[in-house]
């Protein structure tokens, strides 16, 4: 475990030079969404949305959803190009595997790094949501671990996918046909109950739906939204566990020949 942390340490060493820009970006995203959609678009739907949105105005409904979805996007992105670069462009993994590190250490190290990234992004986000007066209680702090769990579930799956790819064309396909639909239809912008029932089942099967539910429930301290929390947590843990085991196999197949 300590040796896997070296991979995290390496990424932090690089991050030390780039964190300012990346932090600025993680401030900008929530600000843009919250002002444009939460305040702008929200003002149009405030009157009709009340009951469907659980009695919240649109800004309160949207804020936590955007937090969860942004964390998913960052976790997915960190698991695509940077991982492929280390596999085949810059061959960092080849260099690391010549040391006592093994493939499992690389995977654990990268997942620790993703956890750190989601931790910092969700924390910044939570501060911004607080400026907008959205969190209802200190329970909102639990949105951070919920976001980390969501990010890890996606990251493990995408690292596995990246390990099978020979070039980056698959990533744009994945963003277009998997990540963006999830972003739109997992309860981020509207409750999935607004969708036709078969589509609701599909939405409920995706990790983001469970992540959004946990994050929104904790930030709004809403017992109704949180009622299914053990199921959400169990689903995300199981998804993460299975995806991590598969990712390990795929990375090994790719890197050890």
């Amino acid at each position, binding site marked *: 475990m300590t040796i896997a942390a070296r991979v995290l340490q390496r990424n932090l060493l690089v991050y030390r030079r780039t964190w300012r820009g990346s932090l600025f970006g993680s401030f900008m995203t929530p600000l843009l969404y919250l002002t444009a959609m939460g305040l702008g678009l929200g003002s149009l739907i405030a009157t009709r949305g009340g009951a469907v949105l659980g009695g919240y105005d649109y800004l309160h409904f949207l804020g936590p959803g955007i937090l969860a979805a942004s964390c998913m996007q960052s976790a997915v992105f960190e698991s695509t190009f940077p991982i492929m670069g280390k596999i085949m462009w810059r061959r*960092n993994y*080849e*260099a690391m595997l010549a040391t006592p590190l093994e493939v499992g250490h690389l995977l654990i190290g990268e997942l620790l790094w993703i956890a750190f990234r989601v931790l910092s992004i969700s924390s910044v986000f939570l501060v911004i949501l607080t400026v907008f007066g959205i969190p209802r209680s200190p329970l909102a702090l639990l949105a951070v671990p919920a976001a980390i769990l969501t990010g890890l579930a996606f990251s493990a799956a995408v690292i596995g996918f990246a390990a099978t790819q020979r070039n980056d064309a698959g990533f744009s396909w994945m963003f277009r046909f998997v990540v963006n639909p999830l972003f739109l239809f997992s309860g981020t912008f509207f409750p999935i109950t607004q969708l036709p029932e078969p589509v609701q089942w599909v939405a409920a099967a995706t990790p983001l739906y469970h992540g959004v539910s946990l994050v929104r429930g904790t930030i709004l301290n809403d017992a109704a939204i949180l009622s299914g929390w053990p199921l959400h947590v169990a689903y995300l843990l199981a998804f993460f566990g299975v995806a991590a085991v598969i990712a390990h196999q795929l990375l090994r197949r790719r890197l050890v*020949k």
Partner: protein
Amino acid sequence: MPPSLSEVLVHARRLTKRFGTFTAVDAVDFDVRTGEAFGFLGPNGAGKTSTMKMIACSSPITEGDLTVIGMDPRAQAAQIKAHLGVVPQTDNLDAELTVRENLEMYARYFDIPNEVARHRTDELLEFVQLSERADDQVDPLSGGMKRRLTIARSLINEPDLIILDEPTTGLDPQARHLLWERLYRLKQRGATLIITTHYMDEAEQLCDRLVVMDKAKIVAEGSPRELIERYSTREVLELRFPDGRPGLDGRLEGLAERVEELPDRVLLYTADGEGTLEAIHARDIQIDSALVRRATLEDVFLRLTGRSLVE
């Protein structure tokens, strides 16, 4: 102490590597002894790199026995890797880190304490003459500098065995000589080196002993001098003819121990090159140019395989 002090550092018997139905390394036997520079010479695709990767524990063994520093790569890969230094064929330095960070971070992968890592980094940058570039990024370095940095990186854990896969491929002559000089110095300090190369001059410069590989098999083994004595004459007379293809028809019969006809020239293997050239003039054979040279490993390879080393 680990068994690193024993005489044989790498011991391979019937070592085999297959990728699907393709056999990259076909039941090879060899021993590398402590303190020697051991070479794998052969053309691209001969199986050198695959052999190297099995020794470095980065590629699983398909069949056969292999012992590295007294340990079994199938069961003790991490322990073996802790004692190896690896210089891969293509540089894989960390382009997002500086020169110094590359070494210090690599030391951390070996769990070397920070203090020790810093100290060794200073020493190694000095050794490969990169101290002045310590805080530069890696990308702007020249090919030779990157190679030297990769070698420094391979030494960060004070390895018992250093594995270099084509260390000077793609470098200009000056950079190659500087690199050879550093490797020679390592050798003098008592390091054990395994080197793959398709350059005969590199093998002759650096290797105490070598094996010649061709088509997944070892075809000869010995010191460069032994191999040349066994498979070649002392000198070689190279002839070029005005009409390209000479159509020899026995005109060179009896002039040399062996005649090798290449597309662009003819090689005559003989103990006395000048004497043979005189005999050719005496026979009034028309030639374009003649060159007498010492026999090299290239000639050994040509003799063993019928092909030249770099095609």
